[in-house]
């Protein structure tokens, strides 16, 4: 994007007629927790499930999982990275840089975090819309044990790449209003937040929605053209009331009303999930409106282009049923709300910062090298080829984006793992190269020859340093019946394959 296309005005609704969404992807982690199990812990009852991240997923890895498919093949076109989460791994240190590294993006762009507020999600979208950037919205939401936030939260991520080349939806208009009041709050770093009486926030947000619609009308945003809209926010009453106001004002179809019921509310990622759901449903030429309610109200109006049908990836709703149900104790262990028994083995060492920096292309973007002389692919990038012994003649080859097959494997009940046992395999990649890596999201007994894909995950955290590693995840058929089968090579909740 040339700088001239950036609209710096903060008083007028923004218009970016050249820019649009060129790619997007929503990622739901593979675990589900029955809300009734959570509620039962405090003698209450609840319906449905919430989406839960694996023990080796955090906001950064969730973000990478969403961003990889959104940018694949367009890495050099990414103009910036804006990362939104209420559950950052690090303070002081930027988290977006790990996403930037995992995606192997150009060094000459900015990658930044947007604080830890719920509003950061829509802000990431608005910022990326301004500069042809990548908005990565990822969150893990929880709350006091047994309570509403824990039941109704969700872990999920979504990424949108903006640009000018063949957008699948063009930006028509954006608008924001801001207000200071106490509806939902949390101390920095604290796991549990709190809310004021919901009706107070509901009243504030309905006022703000009215102001927002007025501003959009003043900007001649042609609200009457809106065919589909979605509202996201953490105050469920406010979301319902504002949806009703917008419906009356526009006559458009409300999308995603059941999103939070189906998988939970993913905090800062929720406006992104709502937008992905809108785009999943949109037809070419339709005008779409997204409203986010967080310490104000923000709107994004888009128009789907002819490219939308061809540019869509896997729809968000296709992932709803693709989860393995875990028990509440498992959730509490994974969330480190309970401390598990430690194995009688030494704790892992703190990763060396200089070593990790030298090895960053392998460690963070899983890049190896193809020997210029004999063609053998090897990870990480070596000095000397194992096959022909030629030195320093390698072309970088990423394993990410490829599939691999398991040559042999083991389930290690002795090694340290935050969620024992540690399952590892020798994986041979389609485009050459083989390496030993840890497996994750294993749902059934592994067999030699099984197909896997690389996935970016967290290893152990030592001394506050989070060790990011690439693992491999088995590829399972996407039919819900087959995918929902529980049981794994050795997971504590494993059941033998029936």
């Amino acid at each position, binding site marked *: 994007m040339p700088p001239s296309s950036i609209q710096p005005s903060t008083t007028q609704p923004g218009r970016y007629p050249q820019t649009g969404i060129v790619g997007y992807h929503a990622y739901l982690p593979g675990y589900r927790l029955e809300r009734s199990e959570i509620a039962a812990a405090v003698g209450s009852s609840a319906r449905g499930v919430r989406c839960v991240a694996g023990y080796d997923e955090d906001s950064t890895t969730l973000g990478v999982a969403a961003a990889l498919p959104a940018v694949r093949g367009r890495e050099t076109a990414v103009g910036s990275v804006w990362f939104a989460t209420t559950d950052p791994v690090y303070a002081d240190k930027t988290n977006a840089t790990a996403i930037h590294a995992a995606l192997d993006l150009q060094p000459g762009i900015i990658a930044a975090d947007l604080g830890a507020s719920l509003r950061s999600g829509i802000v990431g979208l608005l910022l990326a819309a301004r500069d042809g950037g990548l908005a990565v919205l990822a969150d893990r939401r929880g709350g006091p044990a047994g309570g509403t936030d824990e039941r109704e939260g969700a872990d999920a991520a979504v990424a949108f790449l903006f640009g000018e080349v063949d957008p699948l939806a063009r930006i028509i208009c954006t608008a924001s209003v801001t207000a200071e009041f106490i509806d939902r709050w949390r101390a920095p770093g604290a796991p549990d937040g709190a809310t004021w009486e919901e009706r107070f926030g509901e009243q504030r947000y309905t006022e703000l929605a009215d102001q927002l619609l007025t501003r959009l009308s003043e900007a001649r945003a042609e609200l009457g053209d809106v065919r589909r809209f979605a509202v996201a926010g953490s105050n469920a009453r406010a979301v319902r009331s504002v949806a009703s106001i917008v419906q009356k004002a526009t006559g458009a179809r409300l999308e995603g009303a059941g999103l939070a019921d189906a998988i939970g509310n993913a905090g800062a990622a929720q406006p992104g999930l709502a937008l992905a759901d809108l785009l999943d449903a949109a037809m070419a030429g339709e005008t779409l409106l997204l409203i986010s309610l967080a310490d104000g109200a923000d709107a994004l109006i888009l128009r789907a282009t002819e490219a939308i049908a061809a540019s869509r990836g896997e729809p968000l709703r296709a992932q709803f049923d693709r989860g393995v149900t875990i028990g509440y104790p498992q959730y509490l262990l994974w969330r480190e709300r309970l401390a598990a028994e430690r*194995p*009688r*083995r*030494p704790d*892992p*060492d703190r*990763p*060396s910062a200089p*070593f*990790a920096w*030298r*090895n960053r292309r*392998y*460690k963070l973007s899983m890049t190896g090298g193809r020997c210029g002389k004999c063609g*053998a692919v*090897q*990870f*990480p990038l070596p000095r000397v080829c*194992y*096959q022909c012994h030629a030195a320093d003649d390698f072309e970088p080859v990423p394993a990410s984006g490829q599939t691999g097959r398991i*040559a*042999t*494997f*083991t*389930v*290690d*009940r*002795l*090694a*340290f793992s935050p969620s024992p*046992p*540690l399952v*590892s395999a*020798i994986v*041979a990649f389609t485009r050459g*190269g*083989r*390496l*030993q*890596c*840890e497996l994750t999201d294993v749902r059934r007994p592994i*067999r*030699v020859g099984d197909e896997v894909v690389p996935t970016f995950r967290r*290893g*152990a955290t030592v001394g506050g340093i989070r*060790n990011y*590693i690439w693992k491999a995840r088995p590829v399972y058929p996407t039919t819900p019946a087959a995918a929902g089968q529980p049981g794994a090579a050795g997971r504590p909740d494993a059941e033998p394959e029936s």
Partner: protein
Amino acid sequence: MAQHSLSDRVAIISMGCTRFAEHFDRSADELAVDAVAEALDGAGLTRDDIDAFWLGTYVSGISGMALARPLRLVGKPVTRVENMCATGSEALRAAVYAVACGAVDVAMAVGTEKLKDTGYAGLISPKIQDDGTRVNTSAPANFSLLVPAYQERYGVAPDLFRAAMTHVAWKNHANGALNPRAQFRRAVSKESIERSPAVAGELGVMDCSGVADGAAAAIVTRAEDARKYTGTPLYIKALALVTGDGSGAADPQYDYTSFPEVVDCARRAYAQAGITDPRRELALAEVHDCFTPTEIVLMEDLGFAERGHAWRDVLDGVYDRDGELPVNPDGGLKSFGHPVGASGLRMIYECWLQLRGQAGARQVATANRGLALTQNLGGAPGDCVCFISVLGSKPA
């Protein structure tokens, strides 16, 4: 440039070996002192008669001072060597080379290890500072990779391969039960082996070698001087070491059904010793049965079995103590225990006893063949070092 055989130029004139056990009451230093004293007494020598010392220890000491201090060696060259599970054998290799090249007349190799002071389960290997990218698998997990790969390649039904693994553990425990210096002196039923708690892959606790403390020592001289010290020296027929380049995981040609380093090392050792049919020429073999599938695969890599047939040979009792080629008649790592730095010399100690007819209740009937093999493996499938020695009771 070539590697040359030192065959019959150097001989072992005395050995010592402590019991391998959970020696909670003794330090690595004390164990070394005991093994050295036994070796010196056997040859009628004192420490002053030894010209140079090599100490093999994996995790229980740093530098030659780890031996010089407990023995109060004054003015002697003492060197610590390390090469994973081949560490004890490396000490012998260095001592043999020193004698063979004429630098010294009498040299001693000592291996010692104290593993039971950590309080942890299994073997704890020293870690080199890295970036945490390597998969943090345990040793049993690494060796368990052999099992699905072997079953897949040779179409062996899992229950048959399981039975072969069980037979290895059962045989080695039966042998160890007859050995007063073994860690586990108890025969174990096949049922209890198969019922043992899972550790990694198809391996249960009873598929794993014993984590132990212990020490062993050997004194070597030139072959022509050996009879000054003993009427029955053991002659070094072959010493071979192959250090892998670690490419197994990367190389799609490597299929986890073999240790190419062992195949290469065996070829070199047999050439040095002039062995063409090891299964019939060897009186016994002491091999690195760190885990039960390792011993099965080693039978093929060492040329004792056809490819894909070792599991059947094992079940047929070919490698039992009264079989065609007794393997690990002292109980092996499995039941004698595996104090890493001492294990290579412990294997040679068993050859020392067997070829000289001193193995008592577990004496093999094949001793008159006069040749024995020891083999160590350090690391993991696809990423290992291998040491092989061939020892003989008769000079050339």
